């Protein structure tokens, strides 16, 4: 199930749909739809993490059991109302209530609950003392994510709107909010946890395969709640290390004496945004130190290229209604292109 392989109808046009073998084709199509329906970079049923795998398994068990129970109840209801040859005795009907209405659900639910509760402590072991090699502080904002990697040596790397994780390592998250309630959720890795003003919620996740996924705020947090995504990249541990080390320093692409840099400071972008290596220490908006290397702009809103960078700078509140960032419509075409080229250069 490849990432982005999302459109099951595309199988209709594929070569494998043979006209001569409609039956087989239909089966193939069904399987393709079923599998296609579960895949996707934001799918909880296409797991890439410990918690998500176990929950997906729990889901399939419950779905299968639920489907059987549903079919049984409906068949019985139809039998009772339409198909039965003659009425049964009151006594037999009473026995049905006892066994099918009371005893059966008690048994099934007890078993299911035991399974579900047994899963819980191992899924979210944040209550236990353990040496998580890495802690990541994530703070939800309207409508973006502030991300701080806390390394075991005490140093930290600040980023925003994108998450990088090492595969096979348990990572602990400290989740907070700067304004509204948000909810941190990367479905392929695990379930969600709310970010509540005044509280710190802890969650730990372990990715078990590499890939690019999409997280998204799950608690309605205002006008542009729909555009608060968190692209997530799970990398091999060594690449992740290298990536982190590179982020400790200013971007190698940073040209401090550039028209773009002058505009950035001149337009007071630095009062909201931080860029390592120049006098921009703002905290109200996302950190832009390495913005050019991110997968997306505006928390999953746009593809990261120079053109979109320019669009976002001038029209953020239009692209992302309710966004706190002002419109920069007064910038000339050249200024916009200078600024966005410079920002894109922050790799």
């Amino acid at each position, binding site marked *: 199930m490849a990432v*982005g392989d*999302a*459109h099951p*109808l595309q199988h209709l046009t594929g070569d494998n749909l043979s006209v001569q073998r409609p039956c087989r084709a239909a089966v193939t199509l069904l399987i393709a739809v079923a599998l296609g329906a*579960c*895949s*996707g*970079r*934001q*799918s*909880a049923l296409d797991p890439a993490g410990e918690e*998500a795998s*176990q*929950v997906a398994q*729990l*889901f399939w068990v419950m779905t299968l059991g639920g489907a059987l*129970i*549903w079919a049984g*109840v409906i068949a019985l*209801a*139809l039998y009772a*109302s339409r198909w039965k040859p003659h*009425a049964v005795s009151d006594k*037999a*009907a009473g026995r049905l*209530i006892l066994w*099918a*209405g*009371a005893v059966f*659900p008690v048994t099934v*639910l007890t078993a*299911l*609950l035991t399974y*579900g*509760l047994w899963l*819980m402590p191992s899924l*979210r072991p944040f209550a236990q003392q353990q040496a998580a090699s890495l802690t990541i502080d994530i703070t939800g904002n309207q409508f973006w994510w502030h991300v701080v990697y806390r390394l075991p040596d005490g140093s930290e790397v600040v980023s925003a709107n994108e998450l990088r994780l090492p595969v096979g390592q348990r990572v602990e998250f400290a989740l907070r909010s700067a*304004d*509204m*309630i948000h909810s941190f*959720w990367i*479905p392929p890795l*695990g*379930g*969600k946890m*709310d970010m*509540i*003003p*005044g509280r710190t*919620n*802890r969650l730990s996740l372990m990715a078990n395969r590499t890939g690019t996924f*999409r997280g*998204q*705020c*799950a608690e*309605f947090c*205002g*006008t542009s*709640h*729909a555009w608060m995504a968190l692209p997530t990249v799970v990398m091999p541990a060594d690449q992740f290390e290298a990536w982190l080390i590179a982020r400790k320093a200013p971007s190698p692409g940073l040209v401090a004496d550039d028209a773009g840099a002058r505009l950035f400071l001149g337009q007071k972008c630095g009062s909201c945004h931080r860029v390592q290596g120049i006098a921009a220490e703002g905290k109200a908006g996302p950190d832009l130190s390495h913005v050019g290397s991110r997968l997306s702009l505006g928390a999953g809103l746009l593809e990261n290229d120079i053109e979109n960078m320019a669009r976002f700078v001038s029209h953020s509140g239009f692209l992302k209604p309710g966004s706190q960032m002002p419109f920069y419509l007064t910038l000339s075409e050249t200024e916009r292109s200078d600024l966005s080229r410079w920002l894109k250069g922050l790799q």
Partner: protein
Amino acid sequence: MSDETASHHDKAAEEAQMRAVWATPGGWRYWTSVNNTQVGLWYGSAAFAFMLFAGLLALVVRAQLAVPENDLISANLYNQAFTLHGTVMMFLFAVPIFEAVAIFLLPSMLGARELPFPRLGAFGFWSFFIGGVFVCGSIFFGAAPSAGWFMYPPLATSEQAGIGADIWLLGLSFIEVASIAAAVELIVGIMKCRAPGMRVNLMPLFAWYLLIVAGMILFAFPPLIAGDLLFEMQRMFDWPFFDHTRGGDPLLWQHLFWIFGHPEVYIIFLPAIALLAMIIPTFAGRPIVGYSWIVLAAVGTGFLSFGLWVHHMFATGLPQISLAFFSAASTAVAIPTGVQIFVFIATMLAGRVVFSTPMLFAIGGLAIFVMGGLTGVMVALAPFDWQAHDTYFIVAHLHYVLIGGMLFPVFAGLYYYYPLIGGKHMSDRVGRFAFWMMFSGLNITFFPMHIAGLRGMPRRVYTYPADIGWDWLNLVSTMGAAVIGIGMFAVVVDVTLHRRNAPRGERNPWNAGTLEWLNEPEENWGVRSIPRIESRYPLWDQKTLAQEVNAGEWYLADAREGRRETLVTSVLDAEPEQVLRVGGTSYVTIVSAVTLGTVFVALTFKWWIVSLAAGIAFLCAVLWWLWTGTGEIPEKEEKDIGRGLSLPIYVSGVKSAGWWAMFITMTGDGTAFASLVFGYFFFWTIHADFTGGLAGPGMFWPLAALALFALSWGATLAAREFNRRGGIAYARILLLSGALLTLAASAAGLAGPWAHAMDPTAHVYPAIVWILVIWVAVHGALGFIMQLYCLARSLAGRLTARHDMDLHNVTLYWHFMLVTAGVTFIVVGLFPEAI
């Protein structure tokens, strides 16, 4: 003239007089009617209209989501549309439609003329209608609430929420008042107004369910009202209940909201099951199998539903032990639900089923509901809920539950009971067409949402990108919504157009066994005479009953005194106790609802003066209503109700309907108060020092206030006793001194936080102390008015040693007042000293 013709003449005259007494007013005065037949119909039609409006909003929402990155409507309008869709469906349709059905059906089902407080019912309807129009209308001004139907702070307390949040809070508080009014009316009606002989174990299942549901409303709505109060105090006056920077906590709202919100689901679902419990035996042609099973299961569901609320908060980071407990409780509620479903299957199995249109909706609803119930069990398990919570999986789940467990049964009920409205049937063919459109439409709409949710689509997004795999799922959902719309449209056409030219049907077209089918749609009096009941299905088992009742051969067959009367019977065995005179046609209900509505609307726009003036007008209207319409001293002590039975007309104390109404209202009031006290201790548990280092109200003033309230309570109690023994002068003196003590007590209560300069905007501790003492002071003011009211009644000769109903009810109020004052002043005065 033979004796027979003479008695025939008497009967005809009796009938004519009764028809005149119960007549519906004509012309525009029609709207001043308070009779349950009209009020029930208006209530139901209004709720249905609100449902159609919310359905249109849903179509707008679906149209916006049909394709990715759609710009059909703005993000802001979308957020208003989904918020209003949920709000209207829950508060203006799902709950009120059952109040409507119950008001319409219950009297005739119980063999009563009327519910005990018809004017209260009419007042509730007008409040609901005014509040509903206000809330719905807001979207046409772009001012509708937009923070989601559960209004989480801090989003909903922030300035971003705009006036919409106030409209939500105040408009719905007003509607909740109406719901509680209906609950009081229904509980007293079911407990005290059943036909003689209808012991509790012979009650129609609909009455059982409504009794349970009304009880649940009484304990579920007040926490929300308390929450609304805290919320609005924060929005209007910046009291920081949910602001973490000043000691508050946004989670308190979630607790209060869901302590209401989860029972709410069962408040909606149980009456729908109740309709099925009436419909299925009729079409199975036999009594229900397992009557005690289903009653116990319904009671069990009611109780359990109060222990589930945290499953809406599984992702808020609560300790795992709470999650495990609430997971267990949430799965457990499936057990009584299963019992109820199998009672229906067993009944069908043991009967011969006629597969009519109502049955089609019933079985179809069952199929949908069971599916929603099974996904409900899935999300009850915390680990799965961590994934599913706040996604389209939940949207799918809740729509399966509500459509299968509520909407389809309502349509089954509509097709089943429609002949009671005008004696005509709805069209079978249109009904079947509508059923198949809605049934297929809802599966096409909501089934794909399960998949969309699991593929990561969060709820409440106004749009989504194209490349995640949600696009075709959403397109299918939108097409399904259109199909549902077609089915709904067919029903609307059937109800509105078909009615005129359909032929009149028979009286009991389905050959049902319960009393409501005695009903004569053209008459307003409920039942011609009130029979003695010996069976759960009297029309099946008491063969000549219908004829005897309609011939006026049973109890209370006359309205000789020109008054609207119904029988009051004992709570358990339904033995006749009293002839209750109920209120008739009156303007006072509309005036009260309009003035109270003005208070809420004016508060929304912060028009303080208007609000105050309307509040005073409301108080005057209510006092006028009580003064002229209640506790009237009858011209004779007893009335002969036929068959050698004579009953008192005036009863006071625990046997009277008014006493029960007071008791039930104050139970709801006490629940709201308990929610505020819960808030106090909630803040205490989340903070190491919950006073924030600020001064408390001290011990002196709270204890002084408590002592004064206790004295005032004693004075009221003594006044009742002196009055009863004929010491009228002493009683009056005691009432007057009680009123003065009450003023002093309320002032002393407020003096505590005042004297210690507690600033409610500084921190949550002073704010919660203030809100508690203000709560007591407002109740003190009401107690003061009641004491003076009794004094005035005594001076006006409307309250005597024998006729002391008002004094009994006021004393009962004061029992609750004493508990409220006691808890408040011990908590605010002594608790900080004890820790």
